[in-house]
């Protein structure tokens, strides 16, 4: 009797328990998979700044990190205090008043312009570094206007006469722009002489000025700007370029 009752119960069935467990696990899996794909991007904790369109074989960027303490490159090769540059910009009434050498930063730019095939600047601006960044960037913009432009403009005494007097084979390099003319590119000694002959003695000094300026043409400095939140901590890595490590607060 006892044995019969025991046999009537049979082996215990786990079916309801397993069904519930499987359902719970299935739901959890869906949740986990959804969260994992959704949060993958925000889980990225390390950020590296790259310049658009560049490749390792291109020119190398010099990253200048701007903070309230000044600007310094990631590899600590360069450190700049901007007080001199800021004073120079505020004190200048005209672009011609600015000097393009004599301070650590302007000397750095001059060297950069010479080696522009190899390097360029990317400003990495921190929230507290805007006042540092502004004069440094402004000097590049102004320097490019003064020295790098493929065209530089000078007033002409008599526009009509100048326009007509330009030799035909030089006209491709000279264009009129409402009372000024622009010389495009670098002028050779021969071109200088021929232009002076064509324009006459009245414009000789002006042609000399154009010639002098044109010798410095092409010294353009490329630059980029990236804004980096204060929470991103800079960390040097094996590549020497460094990366930023996000803290959790950045995404909150």
């Amino acid at each position: 009797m006892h044995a019969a009752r025991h046999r009537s119960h049979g082996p215990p069935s786990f079916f309801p328990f397993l069904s519930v467990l499987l359902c719970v696990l299935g739901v959890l899996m869906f949740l986990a998979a959804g969260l994992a794909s959704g949060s993958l991007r925000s889980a990225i904790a390390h950020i590296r700044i790259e310049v658009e369109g560049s490749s390792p074989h291109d020119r190398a960027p010099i990253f200048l990190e701007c903070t309230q303490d000044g600007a310094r490159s990631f590899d600590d090769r360069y450190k700049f205090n901007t007080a001199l540059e800021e004073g120079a910009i505020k004190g200048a009434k005209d672009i011609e008043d600015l000097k393009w050498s004599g301070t650590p930063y302007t000397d750095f730019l001059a060297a950069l312009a010479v080696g522009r095939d190899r390097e360029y600047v990317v400003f990495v601006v921190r929230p507290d570094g805007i006042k540092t960044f502004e004069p440094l960037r402004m000097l590049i913009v102004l320097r490019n206007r003064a020295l790098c432009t493929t065209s530089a403009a000078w007033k002409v005494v008599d526009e009509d006469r100048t326009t007509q007097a330009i030799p035909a084979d030089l006209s491709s390099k000279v264009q009129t722009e409402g009372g000024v003319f622009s010389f495009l590119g670098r002028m050779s000694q021969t071109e200088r002489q021929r232009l002076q002959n064509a324009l006459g003695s009245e414009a000789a000094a002006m042609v000399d000025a154009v010639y002098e300026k044109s010798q410095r043409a092409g010294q353009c400095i490329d630059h980029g700007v990236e804004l980096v939140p204060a929470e991103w901590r800079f960390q040097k890595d094996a590549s020497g370029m460094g990366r930023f490590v996000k803290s959790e607060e950045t995404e909150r």
Partner: protein
Amino acid sequence: MRNRQRSSVMSAVGLDSLSDIVMNVMGALFFMVIYVGLSASGLIGRITTPLGTPSRTKPVFLECRNNTVFKPDLDELLDRSVSALSQCVGPDFDRIPGCEELLNRKPLRNAFYTARPRALKCPGMDRPFATAVLDMVPGASGENSYQIQSPDSVLQRELNRLDPKRQHVVFMVRSDSFAVFHSARSLARKLGFRAGWEPFEKDRTLGGGCPGGIGYQWWMPQQQ
């Protein structure tokens, strides 16, 4: 009775085997999810920054302030302000100080800025150049990093109205809003827009400058 018992036992055994397989698969998937989660923490993200280049497309200005982003509609506000000053002054430039004072008493405004009209004497220009100083409306803000991810967000709707082939976006980024700038720029790029940006101090007033002056654009900050 015996048949029913036998069938119950067989079905229980069959389901247990299936459960084993399913549980094993589940376990493997769990390991995969854990692995992905752990490896994600070691991923290196990349932000690409372009070198400064001129663009032929028209800029549309967005502002990041109070760690939110919005479209401040500066063009429209500036146009209204300049138009009001021009109408007040008319051909008599001696009326400029009076008109400036009059209009400053009740400045034009939108949700984000108030405009104080100004007439500047610019080098090489015979006539005064009408512009405006733009003061921030205190407490004005837009959408945060999370809100802009929604397709119904104001920013996404605004961007969807624009044409990436004709327009590019320029972010005016206040120093308290670098984080939201990254989210907004990423979104704009995802929608096909090229982007420019300019950092500003948190409380800096924007002001008009002379056209064509060295280093000036109309929205550049004015030294005060």
